[in-house]
């Protein structure tokens, strides 16, 4: 006879031990990306094809710089999570799986940092 609930007895016994973390990060980042994506389309997308001076001027606005940095960093976290979900679904074989999980995660980390740094450098004066 145990006084534990059914849930307490089975918690942590699945093959993955835990499972809601990735899902939760996916939802959290997707909610953040709703306004940030719209902000990016509004403030940054029109600059593609513009002049260098226009891009430098645009990121002098703290609003544009901050929302763009947040957009880039959160978008790459979201992308890394999405890629991981797709990879674990479709890639079989431990070696390739690990190589892809590590390389996509590190690429997203690097890209997110590089994009954020580029915007910050322009915002702080070229």
């Amino acid at each position: 006879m145990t006084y534990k609930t059914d849930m307490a007895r089975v918690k942590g016994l699945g093959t993955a031990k835990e499972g809601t973390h990735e899902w939760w990060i996916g939802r959290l980042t997707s909610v953040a990306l709703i306004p940030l994506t719209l902000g990016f389309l509004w403030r940054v997308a029109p600059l593609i094809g513009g002049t260098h001076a226009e891009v430098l001027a645009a990121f002098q606005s703290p609003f544009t710089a901050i929302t763009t940095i947040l957009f880039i960093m959160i978008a790459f976290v979201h992308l890394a999570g999405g890629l991981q979900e797709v990879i674990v679904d479709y890639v079989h074989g431990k070696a390739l799986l690990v190589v892809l999980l590590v390389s996509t995660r590190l690429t997203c980390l690097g890209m997110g940092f590089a994009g954020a740094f580029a915007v910050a450098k322009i915002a702080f004066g070229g």
Partner: protein
Amino acid sequence: MADVNRGKRPLSPHISIYRSEINMITSILNRITGVGMMLAAILIVWWLLAAATNEAYFDFVNGILTSWVGLIVMFGSLWALWFHFLGGLRHLVMDFGYGYELKSVDFWGWAIVGLSFVLTAVSIFCLATF
């Protein structure tokens, strides 16, 4: 004991068995658009890094993004972005338990496909005009 029948057991029905439905298409399109936008994301980071480097390098990368190949990638990704955005919104609504009735599934499946093209056209118009 070794499983002598391995590989010969009947499989549960898979996608080749079912009649194609809109929710199958939108489900896989959400993944395809998400993964596909990786290319545009990397290009835009490259473009920002170029802007942070100097004018000559910016003009070079800006030229690549606005070449005809670059524009196909950019406008394709714009559609992918709208589709993934709408699909994601729908997923968030469904996380609260709404929209699972068959009529609703069919309606919103077609609606996000249609709206994704409408919003792409509207945003291209805005980019071209303002």
